[in-house]
C-alpha cells in the first residue's frame, strides 16, 4: 500500500470550503471547517453534514452469509430482519476486540458490514479467513471500500432536511434501520444511524454521486442551519454520547465486557463463534470481580484530560487511565471516559483526580453517557 494519503470523492469540496485537513488512518479528512465548537453545537441544535467516506464497507452475500457472520462476529446477525442494522464486534479467539462494526441486513442473503477506517483491512482479512476456515464457500466476502462514499446528516433538523430530498418513508425508518431509496435523484442506501447521539442519517452512495448529494443536502439544509462538520466535532459528539472509539475505549487488549458492552455478545445464538470460550470467561469475571470499569469523568476545573493520562485516587495512587477526553461544548466542562479500578467506579466516588501533566485536577465520577437527547 502506498504511503500517500487517500482522498475521498468530496476532497475538492472540503478544500473549497477551506477545511483544515488531517491525516486519519491513511485518509486526508476534514478536521473542521471553522470552529469545532460551532459545528458541535449545530449538530446538537440544528444539523451537521459529515463526509465519512473513510469508513470501510464489506459486503457479505450468499446462502451462507448469515452463518458466516454468526460464527465470525459476536452478534446474532442471521436473526436481524431485512432492513435493520446491528451494532456488533469482531473478536479474536482470546476475546480481544478486532473492531466494532455496524452490520446492515440489506436482503435475506446480503449484509453490509461497516468497519472503522483503520481496521477495514483487518476485518476484511478476518472475514475471508474465517469463511475459508469454517468451510463456508457459499458466503462471498467482497471489499466494497471503493464502492461507496458515505455522508452523514445528523441533528434534530436532519429528518426534515432529508425529507425534502426524498420520497422514501423516513417516518417508517426506525433507529438502526436502512433502506434503499433515492435522495436528490441519487441512488442511496438510507440508514438511520450515526455517531453523534442525535437523530440522523448515514447515506451510502456511489463515489461519483457524492458531490451531487453533498450539494443537495447543503442547499436543502441552509434554512435549517445545517453546516459542514469535521472529525473534531464528531469526536466530542460521540464522547458526550458515551460512545466508544476503537483505539481508545476498544482494542485487542479489551473484551466487550471490559468496555461495558457485553450486551452485544449473543451467547444464546446457535453454534460456536470466534472468541466464545474466552468471552464466557470475560463475562463471568466482569460479573463477579471486574478489575476495571469504563466510567465517565467530569472536571471541576478547566484543564482537559487526554487519552493515556493517569487517573488517581484520594491518596494519589494511580487507579486508572483516561481513554478519551475533551472539552464538552454541551456541558461547558472537560469530560473523559476512563478505565478505573472497580472500587473507584461508582458515580460520586470521592477524591478522584486526573494527573494533568503533574497536577492532580479533581474530577467527578459519573455514569455514562454524559448527554442523552430528548426523544
Amino acid at each position, binding site marked *: 500500500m502506498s504511503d500517500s494519503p487517500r482522498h475521498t470523492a468530496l476532497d475538492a469540496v472540503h478544500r473549497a470550503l477551506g477545511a483544515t485537513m488531517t491525516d486519519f488512518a491513511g485518509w486526508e479528512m476534514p478536521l473542521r471547517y471553522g*470552529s*469545532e465548537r460551532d459545528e458541535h453545537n449545530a449538530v446538537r441544535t440544528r444539523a451537521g453534514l459529515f463526509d465519512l467516506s473513510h469508513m470501510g464497507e464489506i459486503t457479505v452475500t450468499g446462502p451462507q452469509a448469515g452463518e458466516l457472520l454468526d460464527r465470525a462476529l459476536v452478534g446474532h446477525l442471521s436473526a436481524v430482519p431485512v432492513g435493520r442494522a446491528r451494532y456488533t464486534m469482531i473478536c479474536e479467539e482470546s476475546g480481544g476486540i478486532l473492531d466494532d462494526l455496524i452490520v446492515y441486513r440489506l436482503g435475506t442473503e446480503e449484509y453490509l458490514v461497516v468497519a472503522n477506517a483503520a481496521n477495514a483491512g483487518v476485518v476484511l482479512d478476518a472475514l475471508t479467513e474465517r469463511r475459508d476456515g469454517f468451510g463456508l464457500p457459499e458466503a462471498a466476502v467482497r471489499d466494497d471500500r471503493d464502492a461507496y462514499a458515505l455522508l452523514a446528516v445528523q441533528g434534530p433538523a436532519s429528518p426534515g432536511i432529508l425529507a425534502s430530498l426524498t420520497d422514501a418513508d423516513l417516518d417508517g425508518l426506525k433507529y438502526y434501520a436502512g433502506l434503499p431509496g433515492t435522495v436528490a435523484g441519487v441512488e442511496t442506501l438510507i440508514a438511520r444511524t450515526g455517531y453523534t447521539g442525535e437523530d440522523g442519517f448515514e447515506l451510502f452512495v456511489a463515489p461519483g454521486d457524492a458531490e451531487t448529494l453533498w450539494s443537495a443536502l447543503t442547499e436543502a439544509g441552509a434554512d435549517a442551519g445545517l453546516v459542514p462538520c469535521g472529525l473534531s466535532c464528531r469526536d466530542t459528539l460521540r464522547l458526550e454520547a458515551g460512545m466508544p472509539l476503537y483505539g481508545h475505549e476498544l482494542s485487542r487488549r479489551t473484551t466487550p465486557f471490559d468496555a461495558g458492552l457485553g450486551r452485544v455478545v449473543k451467547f444464546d445464538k446457535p453454534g460456536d463463534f470466534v472468541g466464545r470460550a474466552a468471552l464466557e470467561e470475560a463475562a463471568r469475571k466482569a460479573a463477579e470481580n471486574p478489575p476495571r470499569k469504563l466510567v465517565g469523568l467530569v472536571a471541576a476545573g478547566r484543564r482537559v484530560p487526554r487519552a493515556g493520562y493517569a487517573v488517581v485516587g484520594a491518596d494519589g495512587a494511580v487507579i486508572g487511565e483516561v481513554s478519551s477526553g475533551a472539552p464538552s461544548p454541551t456541558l461547558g466542562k472537560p469530560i473523559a471516559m476512563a478505565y478505573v479500578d472497580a472500587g473507584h467506579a461508582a458515580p460520586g466516588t470521592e477524591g478522584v483526580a486526573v494527573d494533568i501533566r503533574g497536577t492532580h485536577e479533581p474530577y467527578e465520577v459519573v455514569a455514562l453517557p454524559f448527554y442523552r437527547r430528548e426523544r
Partner: protein
Amino acid sequence: MSNPQQLRYSKEHEWLSATEDGVATVGITEHAAGALGDVVFVQLPEVGDTVTAGEPCGELESTKSVSDLYAPVSGEITEVNQDVVDDPALVNSAPFEGGWLFRVRVTEEPEELLSADEYTAFTGE
C-alpha cells in the same frame, strides 16, 4: 490573514508589542490560534515570575491538543490578561487585541525576532 506591522514575532508564533517604559505585551498570532482550533484553557505565568526567551512559560489547551506557550523575550511578568483566563475563546476571536496573554518587563530580547513580513513569509501565507 494579516499580521500587524507594528508587532514583532517569534518562530514559536508569539507576537510582541513595542516596548514602552521597558514593558512589552505578548500574545499568540492568528496563525497559531487557527492551527490550535478552539482554545479552551490557558495557563499563564504569574505576575512576578521570571521568564526566559525561548522557554515554555505556560500552556494553551484546545479541543484536540495542548501546546506550550513560549516566552518570546526574557524578563519579569508585570501583568496577565485575566479576561483571557476567564474566556479563552478570546485567543481565537481577537488574538492581536483582547486575546493578549501577558505583559513582561523586558531584560533581554533575542536577535531572531521577526518582522511582520518575515513572519508572514515564515508561515507561508
